[in-house]
């Protein structure tokens, strides 16, 4: 690597000699059309580049142009959020007067499409944008949660309500079975790990751009198969330093629980009716009846959220900067859980002659205190609250933690005495250097190098007084300390040429080289024998041959790299016909010797129909009408091991001696998964641009799907990851925005977006019956991924209380047989979206958003435990009180003496929900008031998150969780397995002050 960096440096040094030639300076003022007041913070971009400046507090700007750009074709783009962008051909002028009107035409919006920015009319692909301002104040620990319901085609499902937990994000359906399905996240040109966003401050982000089809993602072709989310951080605004301070304070509470467990009276009655397993005497019953513990109330609390952020920005026409700092402190609704985050950011951009130099950097530190979820283990507080009998108390008469009769752990003891702390340090930054070649106007070079660094230090303590602390070697508690760090750098070097031929032709051609390399290391230890004076490393008892306290140590590491060469061309004719082409070649370290390299390409065209002469008569109806289509391919190499194609031996230890153990079989033919997408869409605006709509159809097919080729188990392995199989996702996306009322003082707008996605398996391994059945799931050709494959439950026979099922002939039978399993829906979500509205009256604003999901199924494994009469010794769901007891009784719960079958539709539920995601009420003080106290702007606001969820799902939350503390995205789709940490219902109050 050193070699390459050096080369670039030499290259840039020799380029610097060219920088001395003189350019010209353009100055001007940007005003708001309605008021003629200067508009601050307007971005002034040189078209086709990412360089430019922005207006100062009086709306004035000054742009020094290198000779290379000072040509007659020079076009500047003026844009500001909420205002219609303008393209201005500068010509010979050096002083410009620009006025911007409120945005009514979507085609003039500036879109960040990855390495470049484009005006929406030029875009040939499928791109959705979420403005950072819309979500920057939502009190989510991890920013992607706030994007739920805001972009068509993007399904965001919270895995967990633990503060800082990451959500699962799917763009246009699940495109892989074994490979990764998360989109690629790019922050300022640098790939950031999709597993931890909670140490980034969402208030620093200017825009989120969701790239969905092949031509849009082709610039990230080797990783773009699952879509790309491009995030840009805020840029400084020239002028006197402006300060912005936001503060929020609020509360989180538990959502409604729809799975009720028994109270003491019910539970004791149930035990009596089912054999009195603890042989309670009448005296016992009388004593226990006086107790009725609500274990939910014992474990949960009202959490407090605090959020402060301070931003300063300023600069002059040559150099702009933005600095920010934030403190975010969110308590979870489970005691002793929460997230504390501290972040800082500095973005600087400077122009000198033909050079533009920039730096974006952020660093953050977070502390996560977590609890286990999505596991059916008994030593988990979130399970214990369901399974502990209501006649048990958290404390006994002496004030000690109660040890329960049933052997269930005491949830309060676990959460108070055991800790799981993770401290994360994160830095993301990039530097870039751009050079405009003076000798050939339109030619520019740019190199951008950035890195994403994350380190985690974990501290998990199992106190010797708790059941899990007794279950460790030596039986006297355990302290596990771990450290891991991961660093990935991305280096992109490009040459671009931009040229305008006459008035009708515009052309941009770019060549790129990109290098991505990531490496991680980890180590840790587990020590035993606590219980002395210390609850940290000092408390670990050294091991001897007989005390079982010998500590375990570990370490690991991995690395991977990608190398890409690609070319992009974009040609526009008459400002209304556009064509984009991309071709690329990618190499990945992960693949087999035979298939390291692959080619990807795509093409897209768009046509602004409303600009045609023949549309003139219809221009009052169609203010804007654009059609577009694209086709192309991109790759996926995520989700498999870094050395997946190799035969691997790993460390193995027996009797204190180290050895080797075969871990993985070789597959030198392993290659990229390839997703080929066709996209077609229409964008239109009507009613003077006040109603804007877009509709898109897509059909994407994943081939060379990573699947497990089955092996004879006598090899010692079950399968080998190979490229076999194909998968299809096709669907329709729809988005509608309307400014229903728009007057000087009052405005009302509404928006709606929804997506219908159909997922279908096209080909699996082998011929004939090649279903892949895994528990209650099946993957079958012609059906959706992750379909449920269970026996249909047909209630209870009133005569004998036996469970009944439907067999394949739709006849009722009392015999459970796996051969009667049928497909009954899928875990994949077919229909989802969001809608919202905004009302403004003078300084008042009310803004709300709903999101919904429909058509998926959830297998509620949680119920298979609390509705299983086998566990009569532990607490059970209240519905079991209806179980069959006598002939003739009509009920849906079978007799308790029959073994319960779990693989039936009895435990399958609809995943549909409608969620009131966000409500924001704010009031901005009039300027004449704020000016009295020398403030630029003062806004007070109140907002609510997850205020209500409408669902029939029997649990806390129909959005599913991961089998990890937090963070992992490898969850089983559509299954509630055990403990769930529900999404927070948060209400906050805040103040925003500008100086």
């Amino acid at each position, binding site marked *: 690597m050193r*070699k390459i960096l050096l080369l670039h440096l030499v290259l840039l040094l020799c380029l610097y000699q060219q920088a001395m030639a003189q350019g010209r300076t353009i100055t001007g003022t940007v005003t708001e059309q309605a008021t003629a007041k200067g508009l601050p913070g307007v971005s002034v971009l040189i078209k086709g580049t990412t360089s430019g400046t922005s207006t100062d507090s009086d709306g004035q700007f000054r742009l020094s142009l290198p000779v290379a750009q000072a040509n007659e074709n020079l076009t500047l783009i003026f844009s500001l959020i909420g205002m219609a962008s303008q393209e201005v051909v500068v010509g010979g002028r050096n002083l410009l007067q620009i006025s911007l009107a409120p945005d009514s035409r979507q085609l003039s919006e500036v879109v960040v499409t990855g390495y470049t920015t484009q005006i929406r009319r030029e875009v040939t692909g499928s791109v959705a944008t979420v403005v950072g301002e819309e979500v920057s104040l939502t009190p989510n620990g991890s920013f992607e949660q706030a994007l739920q319901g805001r972009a068509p085609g993007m399904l965001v499902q919270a895995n967990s309500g633990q503060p800082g937990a990451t959500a699962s994000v799917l763009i246009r359906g699940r495109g892989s079975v074994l490979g990764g399905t998360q989109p690629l996240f790019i922050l300022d040109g640098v790939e950031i790990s999709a597993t931890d966003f909670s140490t980034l401050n969402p208030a620093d982000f200017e825009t989120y751009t969701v790239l969905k089809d092949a031509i849009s993602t082709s610039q990230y072709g080797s990783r773009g198969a699952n879509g790309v989310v491009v995030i840009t951080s805020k840029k400084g605004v020239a002028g006197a330093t402006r300060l912005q301070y936001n503060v929020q304070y609020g509360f989180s509470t538990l959502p409604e629980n729809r799975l009720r467990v028994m109270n003491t009276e019910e539970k004791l009655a149930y035990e009596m009716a089912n054999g009195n397993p603890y042989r309670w005497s009448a005296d016992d019953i009388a004593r226990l009846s006086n107790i009725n513990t609500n274990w939910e109330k014992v474990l949960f609390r009202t959490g407090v959220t605090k959020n402060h952020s301070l931003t300063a920005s300023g600069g002059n026409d040559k150099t702009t900067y933005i600095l920010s700092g934030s403190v975010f402190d969110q308590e979870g609704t489970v005691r002793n859980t929460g997230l504390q985050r501290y972040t800082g950011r500095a973005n600087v951009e400077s122009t000198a002659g033909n050079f533009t130099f920039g730096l974006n950097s952020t660093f953050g530190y977070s502390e996560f205190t977590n609890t286990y979820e999505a596991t059916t283990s008994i030593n988990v507080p979130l399970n214990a609250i369901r399974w502990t009998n209501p006649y048990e108390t958290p404390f006994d008469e002496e004030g000690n933690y109660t040890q329960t009769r049933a052997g269930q752990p005491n949830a309060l003891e676990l959460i108070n005495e055991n800790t799981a702390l993770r401290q994360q340090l994160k830095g993301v930054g990039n530097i870039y250097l751009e050079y405009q070649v003076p000798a050939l106007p339109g030619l520019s070079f740019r190199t951008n190098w950035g890195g994403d660094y994350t380190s985690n230090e974990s501290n998990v303590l199992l106190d010797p007084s708790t059941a899990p602390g007794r279950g460790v070697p030596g039986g006297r508690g355990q302290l596990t300390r771990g450290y891991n760090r991961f660093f990935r750098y991305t280096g992109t070097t490009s040459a671009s040429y931009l040229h305008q031929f006459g008035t009708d032709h515009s052309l941009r051609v770019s060549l790129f080289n990109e290098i991505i390399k990531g490496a991680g290391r980890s180590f840790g230890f587990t020590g035993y024998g606590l219980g002395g004076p210390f609850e940290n490393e000092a408390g670990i008892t050294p091991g001897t041959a007989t005390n079982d306290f010998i500590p375990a140590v570990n370490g690991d590491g991995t690395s991977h790299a990608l190398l890409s060469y690609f070319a992009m061309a974009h040609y526009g004719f008459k400002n209304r016909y556009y064509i984009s082409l991309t071709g690329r070649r990618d190499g990945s370290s992960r693949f087999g010797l035979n298939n390291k390299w692959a080619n990807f390409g795509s093409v897209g065209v768009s046509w602004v129909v409303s600009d045609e002469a023949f549309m003139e008569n219809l221009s009052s109806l169609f203010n804007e009408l654009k059609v577009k289509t694209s086709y192309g391919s991109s790759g996926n190499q995520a989700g498999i091991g870094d050395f997946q194609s190799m035969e691997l*031996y790993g460390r193995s230890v*027996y009797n204190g001696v180290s050895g080797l153990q075969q871990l993985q079989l070789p597959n030198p033919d392993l290659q990229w998964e390839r997703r080929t997408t066709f996209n077609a869409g229409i964008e239109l605006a009507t009613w003077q641009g006040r109603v804007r709509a877009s509709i898109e159809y897509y059909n994407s097919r994943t081939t060379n799907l990573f699947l497990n080729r089955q092996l004879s188990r006598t090899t*010692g392995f079950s399968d080998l990851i190979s490229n076999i199989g194909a998968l299809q996702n096709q669907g329709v996306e729809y988005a509608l925005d309307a400014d229903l009322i728009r007057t000087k003082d009052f405005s009302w707008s509404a928006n709606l977006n929804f997506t219908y996605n159909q997922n279908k398996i096209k080909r699996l391994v082998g011929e004939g019956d090649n279903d892949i*059945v895994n528990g209650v799931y099946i993957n079958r050709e012609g059906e959706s991924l992750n379909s449920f494959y269970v026996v249909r439950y047909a209630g209870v026979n009133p005569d004998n209380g036996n469970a009944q099922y439907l067999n394949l002939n739709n006849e009722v039978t009392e015999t459970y047989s796996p051969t009667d399993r049928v497909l009954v829906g899928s875990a994949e979500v077919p229909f989802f979206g969001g809608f919202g509205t905004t009302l403004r009256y003078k300084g008042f604003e009310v803004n709300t958003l709903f999101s919904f999901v429909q058509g998926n199924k959830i297998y509620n494994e949680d119920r298979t435990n609390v509705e299983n009469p086998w566990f009569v010794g532990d607490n059970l769901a209240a519905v079991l009180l209806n179980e069959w007891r006598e002939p003739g009784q009509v009920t849906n719960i079978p007799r308790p003496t029959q073994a319960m079958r779990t693989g039936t539709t009895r435990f399958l539920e609809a995943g549909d929900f409608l969620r009131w995601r966000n409500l924001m009420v704010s009031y901005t003080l009039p300027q004449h008031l704020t000016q009295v106290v020398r403030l630029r702007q003062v806004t007070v606001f109140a907002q609510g998150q997850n205020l209500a969820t409408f669902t029939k799902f029997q649990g806390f939350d129909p959005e599913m969780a991961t089998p990890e503390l937090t963070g992992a995205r490898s969850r089983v789709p559509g299954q509630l397995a055990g403990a769930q940490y529900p999404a927070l219902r948060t209400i906050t109050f805040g103040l925003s002050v500008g100086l």
Partner: protein
Amino acid sequence: MKLYKLIIGLSMGCAVSLTACKDIIEIEPEYQRAGSSKGFSTLNEHEFALTGAYALFRASGYYGNGTHNTGAWAALPDMMADDLVQTVEDFGNWNTQANWTYAADEADIELSWVAAYSVIAQANLTLRNIEQFEATNPKRVNRIKGQALAIRAMVHFDLLRFWGESYERTATALGVPYKTTVDVEDLPERLSVKETYDHIFDDLEEAELLLADVDNVMNTATNRAYIDQTATHALLARVHLYAKDYEAAENFASRVIAVIPLANQAGFSGIWQDIYPANAEVIWKVTHSAGEGNVGLGIHIGSANRNLFRPATHLEATFNKPNDIRFVSYFGSRESSSNAPVYPGGSGAPGNRRIVTKYLGRGTTLDNLTDWKVLRTGEMYLIRAEARAKQGGAKLVAALADLNALRAARIRNYVPVVIGDEQALLEAIALERRKELFAEGHRWFDLKRSMRAISRPDVEVASASVTLTPAAREWAWPIPQGEIDVNPNIVQTTGYR
């Protein structure tokens, strides 16, 4: 002119950086070792691979416990029989096996099939091309190769114990595939029981020869973690007993007994707590250190005090409780509060919740961390007694002597008995076997090789199965559906087709 220079510079820069770049995606793992289709190139690697084979015995599905399965060759054979009783506290995770309701799609059965064949695969990797070092380092090769062959034979025998349709030495009924090569595309067929035995004996006999001449001492008296020549003799004794070659079983058992005597009464309880150096009469054990899994978790979880399986009342009733040292070593009482103490034997305990105390942990800890004892001398006495009694005639006296010797070692103030009748003696030996080897993974196989019938006199859970007839298909496990789907050469066990 300047532009011209620039383009030259740029293209040269790219050209040089391109070749440098290519290396970027050539990455070798640092924390794993990349393998080669040719196998290992040093004898050290063969020895490393052998260590890997031993470690795989701890896998969940072999002797270890997983979240939803318990060691198939550890306590499961007792749970599937009549001396361990499923309680209402059980999670029901291995219900299908404990209550004989398994079908070909049973995941736990597939897990055990894969666990066994992965030990075999690791043994075969150890053996592949090891001959290349025979000339330069013969004794070391003997040691490595002998162990790998013994492991391979023993694991195939364990497969035969569950999946074999018969234990008869010459039976043409279905046995199991015998794997001796490394080939991921191999689709082997099931051998007959006879052919499976042939391979097992070939490997064990070769191992026995090789292990006679090795480069260093493999085990110490206090830690017998490796299969040495004595352990191979013990394996041969066990396999010969199943194959009904009683003379050979007797001879091999005698050779072991001569080397490793029974524990004395003072040291006996220490066997189950791995108390050093008293770990007496253990011939081979799979050692477990902290973090390497637990044994016996499927019976009683010591830390959580969850009693999943309890000892059957009828078995406890057969013990001479005050004098039999096995009684206080194997059984205890414990109240059901999570940190309740354990009362070994049960005297003085409040309540009557009976637990198995064999696998609670080392010393006094209740973490279920102990070594798994695969072979011990007590079994050798029982093998020899049974083998001698089966031979009858003059050997009945010797068989009775073995029985009395074992009892004298276990029971204080034992007065030797006299049993003249062969059938009565065999029954006494079988009962002693039940008591001595309780919860050590023998009962299901002993029933399968003798009467092939179960009738559980003591059940606690309403839905528990009670009887299993000799004709039941469940005496042999089904080949896992995953194997059937992919391997056209394999034949499903009778009754599951």
